[in-house]
């Protein structure tokens, strides 16, 4: 039985009079891809940002590996083993691809800068970063300036950079946004590979066509509340979901 990595309980966020997220409950297990979907304004991004520590919750609890993480600043959440990607790629533009990945490994450096095993540690992290480049398929642009990457390559860099932090939980913020069909295929393959390594994956996504074949379980949000959860096939068959997504955006299958 895979263990529970992330527990979200009664999570609530109010912005003034607007309740963006209401009493949300869900779990993510190790090696599982949990998709959170919903139409625009359903509270997906808010949920993501609460878990990633970008802003404080009004009420509720988020536990990672049994420990509460709600209210911690983003860098401390990352240090615990929760890494994220950004919907709009945010590379460190003054650095090469490999250096970007090494920034992702920041929390895995424990030696000093000058003495002891600092050199060994650097070499070990570099090896690991090269493996990750192979894993996402960016090895050929290893030393390139990140400004020269395509949008799709930039997305893969986001993923490899986050993986360098050796997370137990990966948070994906709309990883399909802006990608071509070929790039979508590649990103989906990488996400499956991440889950296959036993990492828990929480995926916030607008695009059902991308998400439903990929996710193991799906949570559907509408107006800040959970309206359904279950296996992708159950979600496809659920009339409440098709209603929420409106006819034209509903998956045809």
């Amino acid at each position: 039985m895979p263990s529970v990595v992330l527990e979200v309980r009664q999570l609530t966020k109010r912005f003034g009079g607007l309740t963006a997220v209401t009493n949300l409950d869900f779990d993510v297990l190790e090696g599982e891809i949990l998709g959170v979907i919903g139409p625009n304004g359903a509270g997906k991004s808010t949920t993501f940002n609460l878990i990633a520590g970008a802003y404080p919750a009004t009420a509720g609890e988020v536990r990672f590996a049994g420990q509460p993480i709600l209210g911690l600043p983003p860098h401390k959440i990352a240090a615990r083993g929760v890494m994220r990607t950004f919907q709009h790629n945010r590379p460190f533009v003054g650095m090469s691809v490999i250096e970007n990945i090494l920034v992702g490994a920041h929390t895995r450096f424990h030696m000093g800068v000058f003495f002891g095993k600092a050199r060994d540690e650097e070499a070990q992290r570099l090896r690991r970063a090269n493996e990750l480049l192979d894993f996402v398929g960016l090895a050929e642009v290893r030393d390139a300036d990140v400004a020269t990457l395509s949008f799709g390559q930039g997305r893969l860099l986001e993923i490899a950079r986050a993986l360098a932090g050796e997370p137990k939980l990966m948070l994906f913020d709309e990883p399909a946004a802006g990608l071509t069909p070929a790039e979508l295929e590649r990103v989906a393959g990488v996400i499956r590979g991440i889950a296959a390594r036993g990492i828990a994956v929480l995926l916030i996504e607008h695009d059902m066509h991308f998400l439903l074949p990929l996710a193991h379980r799906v949570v559907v949000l509408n107006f800040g509340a959970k309206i359904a959860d279950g296996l992708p096939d159950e979600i496809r068959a659920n009339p409440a979901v098709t209603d929420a997504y409106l006819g034209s955006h509903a998956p045809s299958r």
Partner: protein
Amino acid sequence: MSAARWLGAFVLLAAVPFFLGDYHNDVYRKMLLWVTLALGYNFLFGICGQVAFSHFAFYGIGAYSVVILLFQLNVPLPLAIVLGVAVCIVVALAVAIPSTRLEGFYLALATLALAQLFVVLLNEGGSVTGGNGGIANYRLPNVFGFQIRGPWYTGVIAALLVGTYALLWRLDRSWFGRACRAVRDNPEAAAAMGVDVARTKVIAFTLTSALAGVAGMVYAFVDNTVNPPIFGLDNAFLLLFMVIVGGAGRHAGAVIGAALLFLLPFFLSPVVGHHHVLVFGVLVVAAILLQPKGLIGLYDAFRRP
């Protein structure tokens, strides 16, 4: 780079003054000091992306601290050096901790205020700082019974430069240097990678300020006089110009920018008199508009077309 290369660089730099006359030795060692300052400032401004104007003030704080400790308070030299560094660290922390927690230009404002306040304090410091005239007519105490003078003292400056360069070079190629660049490029993404943004800024600011302070201590025995006008804002801005013209974010850029802008007035003054500042202004505007990567960027473009 290996220790042997740094040692080689030191020997080379330290040997030069033995082939120079007194005047040229003086120009040479002041150039080395400017290069040292520019290297530290480049780490703060170019690599960590923090706009601060206090770097030259810390140079002054280091210089005044060591002179006051040695000759007003009669503290022995090794202790004076340690205490001088401690003063720089305390002042740097006092400025950095509140201001780096705020966004963007608050550090610039706070450090500008510090730089101005420092000069006011020097002028109003009475017998402690020597007021407008500063402190003069002192000499470096003997070290292990040796008098370090003339070209030998230039060796101390060469060691300071090479030591500063080696330290910053090593830092830049470590997780700390990468964290600094990440903070400069995208603080929010840096935090998501686990970088403590405020802490990284405070460490970079304090470290480079302390390095400027150490350079100031060495400077105090170059002319054997410290006085307020040297540590004013003119030189703080000159340091910024050096880093921008040379190429912000690159050690070699800082070296080239500092050497060029320090030496240029010697060649320009016969032609334009004291209007060389005007030429600098044009150079900086040209660098920002036409060549944001500075002279080192031009060199790169030339090498790898």
